[in-house]
């Protein structure tokens, strides 16, 4: 029954979008952090989505997170001479996360997640009705 494949397709989208949400949460949590355990400021991370074919014919394209890449844009530098992590000129190096971009990313991920949940619910109710065929 090919309808069952809808669950795999929508399920792969749920997994990918929730990983994207996880990355957004991590970026937002670290937006104001100055230095990680390695002494370097936190770098924003982004997921890279890739199509994952779930059958040979290519009619069930799922999605997966191919990799998580680090954002290489320059870190934010704030003048705070009283801060313990300030350098000799009084500048503190913060993470390069842009909270506005991350909020937009979060909304987009949450909308996509909702769509996949609706697709799954629709497929579920159609299958339930098909099971009652002829009753």
């Amino acid at each position, binding site marked *: *029954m*090919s*309808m069952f*494949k*809808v669950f795999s*397709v*929508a399920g*792969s*989208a749920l997994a*990918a*979008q929730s990983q*994207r949400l996880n990355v957004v949460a991590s970026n937002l949590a670290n937006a104001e952090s100055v230095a990680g355990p390695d002494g370097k400021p936190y770098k924003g991370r982004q997921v*890279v*989505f*890739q*199509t994952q074919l779930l059958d040979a*014919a*290519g*009619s*069930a*394209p*799922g*999605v997966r997170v191919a990799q998580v890449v680090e954002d290489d844009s320059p870190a934010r530098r704030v003048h705070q001479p009283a801060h313990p992590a300030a350098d000799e000129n009084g500048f503190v190096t913060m993470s390069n996360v842009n909270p506005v971009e991350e909020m937009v990313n979060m909304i*987009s*991920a949450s909308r*996509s997640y909702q*769509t*996949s949940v609706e*697709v799954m619910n*629709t*497929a579920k109710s*159609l299958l339930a*009705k*098909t099971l009652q*065929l*002829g009753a």
Partner: protein
Amino acid sequence: MLDALNRALDFQATALTLRSERSRVLAGNLANADTPNFKARDFDFGQALAQAAGNAPLRAAARTHAAHLPAAPAAAAPTLLYRAPLQSSLDGNTVEMDVERARFADNTLRYEASLRFLNGQIRTLMTAMGAAGQGQ
């Protein structure tokens, strides 16, 4: 006799199978709404149904033993086409959420319509056979 019963239900059954195939393709489009360079796909339902209605089974029966008789050859799977986007996006993705959702909802409704027709035909046949307590 049984073949006649099969034939009575065959058309709607084929339509139902194609509808579920299409819902899978559209679900794939929705799942890949954020994938860079993904091209939205779909197939012409009318054409696929006309093609499948002529030469019945959509899937070939698997032969797990050498002595099994070959079943009728399966009809070709519907040809997947690419959707022409109304507004192209910068990342090469051609999925338009509103279009895909509308098509998905439309496909769902038509799937339910096919189900209803099939149920009606089954009830008609039950009545004709005089099944006790059915369709009276």
